[in-house]
Structure formats: structure tokens, C-alpha cells
């Protein structure tokens, strides 16, 4: 096992700058998730760690050794590719043993490692099948088995669940996390799905446009997003943003006032963006008036799309709401859980 250091890594394809100086430290045994919208450079970064792309500038070190010019096979990593890339002409057993055959490992060692991986992943009965005879989830597991067999220092996952249907994705998400808890191998996982990031990661790296927006534990990112992008990206449904100004120690938009979160609130008259997560709205007779546009009961909660002062907000109430579209609902934010951002820089103020 090993830690991974990414130091000020830059990369350009032709004249297009993909990564603008990315630095991330992944500790030994940690499960780090690189998350961001497509095109943010997360997959490129992962491929650079794997050695499938050259490092433009900066350094990547695995276990203290700079690997910029080390061939992929000598980096002691294993990678699960997005489309699994199972060799179609080999059985599950041969797929998993391929790296060992290439390394001329004795047959007994191959057999032992493959059966251990098969046992971990529950693939025992499928060893003699060919990839085409497997379902999506089984192929996914074989791809992971191929990685486990190598006993690597670092596991790399490149959007491994994006080809699976929603239900299987949730199941495999759990299996990967469980696997990590058993093997404790340093893992770097790329996804565009913030729910995967939130549920699996020890550490989330949010990227956008080739830059790191924020690094932190899932709930830290959720509770204290560093900027508007992270605030909007993490959490589903995403955070509500209201545009207005600071006035007399409160947030004013239109003719409504909302209390400011504790902390430095900005000077009077300053334009700010006020953020409230859907679940931090409460029904409150003393709150601001909102016009209900849409009510979506999910059973466990009720999502209400409403309009306050001409701005649309989404609220998620634990209680069942019987309001109908067009009616007025009085709501107020949980002031301890509101966020304030500077709209010009996008940075968090409080």
C-alpha cells in the first residue's frame, strides 16, 4: 500500500489546457474520489496516475517514488476501466490471471490468487465463462477481480459504474466500498456522480475546468462548501441560491428579508448569494411567503418547488405537505445551515 502525491500537475492536448496545476495528496489506505462534471480533467488525471497519459508538467509520486517516467506496469497500480475492457477471447479465469501469466508466475500461485479474488467477489462459479456470457454486474466484478489479483499498491477506478443500471449501481457501490474496507488498499476513484462520491469517499476532490475546487471529507464539503460550484455540485437536489443584498444585518431580496448565517456577513448594500439546501427549509407560519408550483411526494419526504420573490427554490420537508400548486406556503431557512457567497468571486463568505 502506498500514498499518492499529485503535485502541481498540468496537462495540455495541443493548445487545449486540460489541467491547470492540480495538487492532491491521497494518504495510504484512503479512498479518494475525483468528482466533477464531464470534461473537468478527472479522467485525464487518473490516466496520468496510471501511466496511460504522459504527465505534462508537475509530479506524480506513488509511495514516495516519482513515477512520471515509469511505465504503467512498473507503477504497481491496477485500474478498472470504464467499459471493463475484459479480453473477450479469454475465460474469466484467464482474464484475471493474465497479468500473472505475463509475469511468468508459477501455475500454483496463479491458481491461488485467482481463487482468492474469485472468492472475495463471489465469482467462483463463473471462472470458465467468457465475458460475453456475463451480465454487466458480473463483468464489473471480473474487472475488479483482475485488479485484485495483482495485489497493487493503488487501485484506480475510472467511472466503473456508469455502464450499469441504477439498481445495480447502488449494489456495486456498496460492494466496492466493502471491498476497500476489507483490503484497505489506497484507492482513487473517478466519477461524475456526486452521490457515488458522497457515499464512498474518505476524501472527495471536486474538480471543474481542470482545477481543484475543493478537497475534503464528504460531509465537510456538504456542510461547508468552499464556493458556489461545490455548493451547487454536491447534494441532490442541489442547493438553492437566492440573489440579493445585505441590508441591516439581514439578507434582502425583493421585499423579503432572511436572517444571515453567523459569521462575517459582509457590509451593508453588498450583493451576495444566499444558499439554502432543500432540507434546511422549515414550514414556519412566521416565515416568508412562497407560492407553491409543484409538489412531489416521495414517501419519505415531500419535495416542493416554490417561488419566493420571483426566485425558484426547492424544499424538502420531512412532514407531508398537503399544499396544492398556486397556494401560499410560509417557510423559513434553518439559519445555522445557510450559506453566504460572494457572487463575483463565487467564494464562500459565511
Amino acid at each position, binding site marked *: 500500500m502506498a500514498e499518492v502525491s499529485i503535485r502541481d500537475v498540468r496537462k495540455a492536448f495541443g493548445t487545449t489546457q486540460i489541467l491547470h496545476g492540480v495538487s492532491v495528496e491521497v494518504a495510504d489506505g484512503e479512498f479518494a474520489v475525483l468528482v466533477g462534471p464531464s470534461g473537468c480533467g478527472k479522467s485525464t488525471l487518473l490516466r496520468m496516475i*496510471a*501511466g*496511460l497519459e504522459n504527465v505534462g508538467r508537475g509530479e506524480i509520486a506513488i509511495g514516495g517514488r516519482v513515477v512520471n517516467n515509469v511505465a*504503467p*506496469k512498473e507503477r504497481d*497500480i*491496477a*485500474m478498472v*476501466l*470504464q*467499459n471493463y*475492457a*475484459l*479480453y*473477450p*477471447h*479469454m475465460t474469466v479465469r484467464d482474464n484475471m490471471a*493474465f*497479468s500473472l501469466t*505475463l*509475469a511468468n508466475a508459477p501455475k500454483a500461485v496463479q491458481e491461488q490468487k485467482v481463487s482468492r479474488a474469485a472468492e472475495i467477489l463471489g465469482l467462483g462459479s463463473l471462472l470458465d465463462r*467468457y*465475458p*460475453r*456470457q456475463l451480465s454487466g454486474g458480473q463483468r464489473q466484478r471480473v474487472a475488479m477481480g*483482475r485488479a485484485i489479483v*495483482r495485489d497493487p499498491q493503488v487501485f484506480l477506478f475510472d467511472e466503473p459504474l456508469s*455502464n450499469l443500471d441504477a439498481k445495480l449501481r447502488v449494489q456495486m457501490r456498496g460492494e466496492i466500498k466493502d471491498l476497500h474496507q476489507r483490503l484497505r488498499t489506497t484507492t482513487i476513484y473517478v466519477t461524475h456522480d456526486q452521490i457515488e462520491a458522497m457515499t464512498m469517499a474518505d476524501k472527495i476532490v471536486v474538480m471543474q475546468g481542470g482545477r481543484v475546487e475543493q478537497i475534503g471529507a464528504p460531509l465537510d464539503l456538504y456542510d461547508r462548501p468552499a464556493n458556489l460550484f461545490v455548493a451547487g455540485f454536491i447534494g441532490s437536489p442541489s442547493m438553492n441560491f437566492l440573489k440579493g443584498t445585505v441590508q441591516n444585518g439581514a439578507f434582502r431580496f425583493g421585499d423579503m428579508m432572511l436572517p444571515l448565517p453567523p459569521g462575517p456577513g459582509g457590509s451593508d448594500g453588498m450583493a451576495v448569494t444566499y444558499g439554502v439546501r432543500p432540507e434546511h427549509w422549515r414550514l414556519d407560519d412566521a416565515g416568508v411567503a412562497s407560492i407553491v408550483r409543484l409538489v412531489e411526494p416521495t414517501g419519505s419526504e415531500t419535495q416542493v418547488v416554490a417561488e419566493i420573490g420571483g426566485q425558484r427554490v426547492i424544499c424538502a420537508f420531512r412532514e407531508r405537505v398537503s399544499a396544492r400548486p398556486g397556494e401560499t406556503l410560509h417557510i423559513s431557512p434553518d439559519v445555522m445551515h445557510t450559506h453566504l457567497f460572494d457572487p463575483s468571486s463565487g467564494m464562500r463568505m459565511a
Partner: protein
Amino acid sequence: MSGAETISWTPVRKAPSPLARLFDSKPFLIAICLLPAFGLLAVFLTYPLGLGIYLSFTDTKLGRPGVWVGLENFQYLLEDRVFLNAVWFTVFYTAVATVLKFALGLWLALLLNENLPIKSLIRAVILLPWITPTVLSAIAFWWIYDPQFSIVSYVLVDKLHILSSYIDFLGTPWHARWSLIVANVWRGIPFVAISLLAGLQTISPSLYEAAMLDGASSWQRFRKVTVPLLMPILAVVLTFSVLFTFADFQLVYAITRGGPINSTHLMATLAFQRGIPGAALGEGAAIAVSMIPFLILATLFSYFAIGQRKWQQGGSDE
């Protein structure tokens, strides 16, 4: 509501005409769709083939209907040194040319599968030998192999001074044989290269990445990933190439006409030579019919080689 009146309309169903009903009947459609193909095959394939086989058992000559002679033609051919030589050369020609075509064609296909700067231009150039009419390229080779005006001799002797005398490409048996093989390889490479390139492009690049991560060297990636995944298409292309080469006629007939001293006769050229200019239709037909067992062998090979491998069964790779 805009106040425009609602126009009521109900679709009218007409009873289908007898002709329409006829065209809806599946057996009739099957019959009428198969008819042209059957007709063409019967007139241009079954009849000539049947006639050829029949003629091979007769002593028909041009202008004289023959009589049934049984296996006499074949017995005669078995002792005919020219025929046996043609059989041997046909097999040799097919084997050597196929091996060379595949080695060079695969090499070209692998090259074209890389990201070369002027890839499409090279691809177009590679196709040139294929789109040139065979006889035209044969005439070009005829000039290249000319004893006096050959450009090869000119370069080797007059420019590079490697050799002291001009090469007599088509005047001695072995020179002529190799010259024909070179011409055939030149003509056959595009088919192999383009088909294999198509095969290569179906192999997902991520498999190579996976192999690279698994620690495979570039040779191992070729041996363990490219070759097995290319096998299905390789078998098809190989079969076609063998069939085409074995039944080759134009190149040989246009360049050497089987000479010198009958050393470059293929079975096809010899069959023509004996049957039409030589007027011995029955004997010519017997030579052509002797090709059938070889062709059946090649077809059987393809039948087993093309047959799906176990790993190809089932769903898709994605």
C-alpha cells in the same frame, strides 16, 4: 377555443385488390425474391460447371462433339508431366504468395492502424493495385520484367552497378516463377491489408490499455490480444485469398502465358491453353475439374475456421 369548426374525418379502409393480397402472401414473396438469384446461379454457375464436369468425361474437341470416355482424360493427365508440373506450381504459387501477402498485408494494416500523419493518403495509395485492372497491371509488370527495358535491371546495373548483366526475368523458369509471385503479391496486398485493417479497428483501444496495465509488452499485446481477436476475420480473408490465388489466371496468362517451357502454367492457364487454343475441350475441362478437390479443401478449411469460436457466442462486448 378558436371557434373554427371541427372537421370530422374517419379513415376509409378499402378492401385490398387481389394483386395487393398476392404481394402480401409470404410464400409468393419468397418465391419471387429468390427467382432472380436462382436464375442467375443456374444459368451462369450450375450450367457451366455441370457442362465442364460432363466435358471432362468426354473427348470433345472444338468443332467435334465427343463421346463418353470415362476417366480416360484423368488417367492421361496423371502421366502428363506438364499437368503435374502445373499442379505443383499452382500449390507453390498459392502457398508462397499467400504467406507473403499476409505477412506484408498484416504489417501494412498494423501500420495504418497507428496514428500516422498522412494516413488517408497512404490508405489510398495502398488500394491502387487493387483498383487497377489486372491486365493493365500485368502489362506494366511485363515491362518491368522486360529483358532489355526492365527498370529493375536498369537501376541495378546502370545506376547502382550492383549487377553486371541484365536479369532475364521471364526467360528462365525460376526467375519467371518468382516474378509472377511478386506480381501476384503486389496485386493481392490491398485486399488483405484493408480487410485486416477493418478487423483491427474493431478491437477496442481500451483492451490495449488494459493489457498495458497488466504488464504486457508491445509484442505480448500483439500476440495475446491482437492476433486472437483478429483470428475470425483473418480466417475469412485467408480463405478468400487462397481461393483467388489458386484460381488465378489473368496475371500469369498476360505476363508469361505459362512459359518458359511450360514452367509457369497454373492449372487454370493450362486448362485454358489445352481447351481453347489447343482445341482439346475435354482435356481442358478435365484439368479445370481437377481444381475442384483443392477448392473444396480450402472451402472446408474456411468452414471450420470461420465457424464461431466459443468466446464469440453470447452477447456483445460492451
